[in-house]
């Protein structure tokens, strides 16, 4: 028992250090947690045990649920066709490219190559979103289209992860039928739950969400699929409800970021082997090149087709070549299910991390679309001033 508390204290301590470093450096806490996890796993004896695995798995499920719930349904509907095309291509090209490269060039087996394709197919919505908020592109139609396309890419990743490794037996039928039914009913039922029981100290609405996630996750795993698939889909269908209930979303985030995701990201880092990184350094660079090349070949022509300028097209293409959370989740799924070994996992996760950093750096350094500094919609003055200049009031 005492050992458990020491373990908990050391992991939470590492998460706290990650938060402080993140605040000081401006690098996301997720990335810092992975980095500290690498140090902890390779030098300080941080290795996941059973309860850490549970928290990490719950963390990955919550990450995907929240990612789905963040979508703006109106924006997706408005930009449905271009976002489906750009997002679909943004998933498919790197998925096929990285899978083919891993299978034919590096001689990974088919299932390991599929994990490679999935892990490198992703687009980090968070990376894209941060850059867009800073440049205020998220307020424009172009920005909304790009964000919607990123969600479509992630949907492709989650679907591939859930479909490719599933076992197609009666449990799959049960999973599909129950999930389909649940997704159909859940928006209405969630709205009812949140309205009727929301805001109470016993948090029934949060428990309801956890219940749905765990139950659908259990069905998915029983069908040899992946728990993040129903989590993402559940997030997508209740996104409209969350748009109106920001307080609940905030509570979910607090729980997730405090207790769950640190365990996921530190574990993801702790399982990276530094010797494997040294051996596979060239492969990491090549896989990063494959991912970026595939994204450029697929996405860049579409940006031009949909009327973006050259600079905007370059910018959007590079941002869509980023990845982090879903790539890490996919690689960890492969390792947990013995589809890839630790060396392959180390190479894949490091490539995913590199894909968060390198394309963002290039995009923000050389291709940020020029936008004028926007005045805040506030003009401060005295009553006397406004009486003399009523047109400004």
């Amino acid at each position: 028992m005492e050992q458990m508390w020491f373990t908990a204290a050391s992991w939470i301590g590492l998460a706290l250090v990650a938060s402080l470093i993140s605040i000081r450096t401006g690098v996301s806490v997720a990335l810092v947690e992975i980095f500290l996890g690498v140090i902890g796993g390779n030098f300080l004896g941080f290795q996941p045990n059973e309860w850490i695995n549970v928290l990490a798995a719950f963390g990955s499920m919550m990450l995907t649920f929240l990612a789905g719930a963040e979508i703006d349904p109106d924006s997706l509907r408005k930009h449905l066709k271009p976002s489906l095309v750009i997002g679909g291509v943004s998933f498919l090209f790197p998925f096929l490219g990285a899978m083919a490269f891993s299978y034919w060039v590096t001689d990974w087996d088919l299932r390991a190559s599929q994990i490679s394709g999935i892990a490198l197919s992703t687009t980090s919505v968070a990376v894209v979103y941060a850059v867009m908020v800073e440049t205020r592109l998220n307020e424009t139609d172009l920005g909304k289209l790009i964000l919607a396309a990123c969600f479509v890419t992630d949907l492709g990743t989650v679907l591939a992860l859930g479909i490719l490794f599933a076992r197609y037996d009666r449990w799959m039928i049960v999973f599909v039928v129950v999930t389909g039914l649940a997704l159909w009913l859940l928006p209405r039922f969630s709205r009812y739950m949140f309205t009727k029981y929301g805001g109470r100290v016993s948090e029934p609405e949060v428990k309801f969400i956890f219940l749905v996630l765990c139950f659908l996750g259990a069905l998915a795993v029983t069908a040899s699929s992946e728990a993040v698939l129903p989590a993402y889909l559940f997030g997508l269908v209740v996104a409209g409800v969350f748009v109106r209930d920001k307080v609940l979303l905030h509570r979910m985030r607090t729980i997730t970021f405090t207790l769950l995701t640190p365990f996921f990201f530190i574990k993801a880092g702790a399982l990276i082997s530094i010797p494997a990184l040294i051996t596979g350094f060239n492969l990491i660079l090549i896989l990063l090149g494959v991912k970026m090349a595939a994204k450029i070949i697929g996405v860049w022509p579409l940006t031009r087709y949909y009327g973006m300028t050259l600079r905007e097209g370059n910018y959007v293409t590079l941002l869509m070549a980023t990845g982090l959370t879903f790539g890490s989740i996919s690689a960890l799924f492969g390792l947990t299910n013995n589809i890839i070994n630790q060396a392959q996992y180390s190479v894949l996760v490091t490539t995913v991390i590199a894909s968060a950093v390198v394309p963002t750096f290039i995009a923000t350094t050389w291709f940020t679309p020029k936008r004028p500094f926007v005045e805040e919609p506030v003009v401060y003055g005295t009553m006397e001033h406004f009486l003399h200049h009523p047109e400004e009031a």
Partner: protein
Amino acid sequence: MFKKLLIAYDGSEGAQKALAAGISLARIHQAELWAVTVQERLPRYGGTIDEIDEEKKFLDERFEKIAAEVRDQAQAAGLEIKLLRPFGHPAQTIVEVAKEGNYDLILVGHSGVSGVWAAFLGTTAEKVSRHAPCSVLIVR
């Protein structure tokens, strides 16, 4: 002489002095008064949208506090002031804003919120004065 003034305001003691000086100068010169509050960048390479949103919310709250300070000072002086809120590196962004807006004078506090880092890397005021396209008044 000065028709368009830009005050770099980060809420620090130095910035408050720069704001006071800017208001005085704007009255004397009948100048247009602008303030810029450069926001810290959102977390790089974020893991989730939520992380970005939470940080954005934190920055928004801090900005509101700063904006209220600027508003109160301007109201007390009976002046109109316009506020810009770009993200980025403080010195670099102030210089970019000044270039784009054709300002005549930038007012900046001698010491800002950079604290001990400034002792090693130089203050924002020093950097702005080196690269600005117009006159710079460093207020002590």
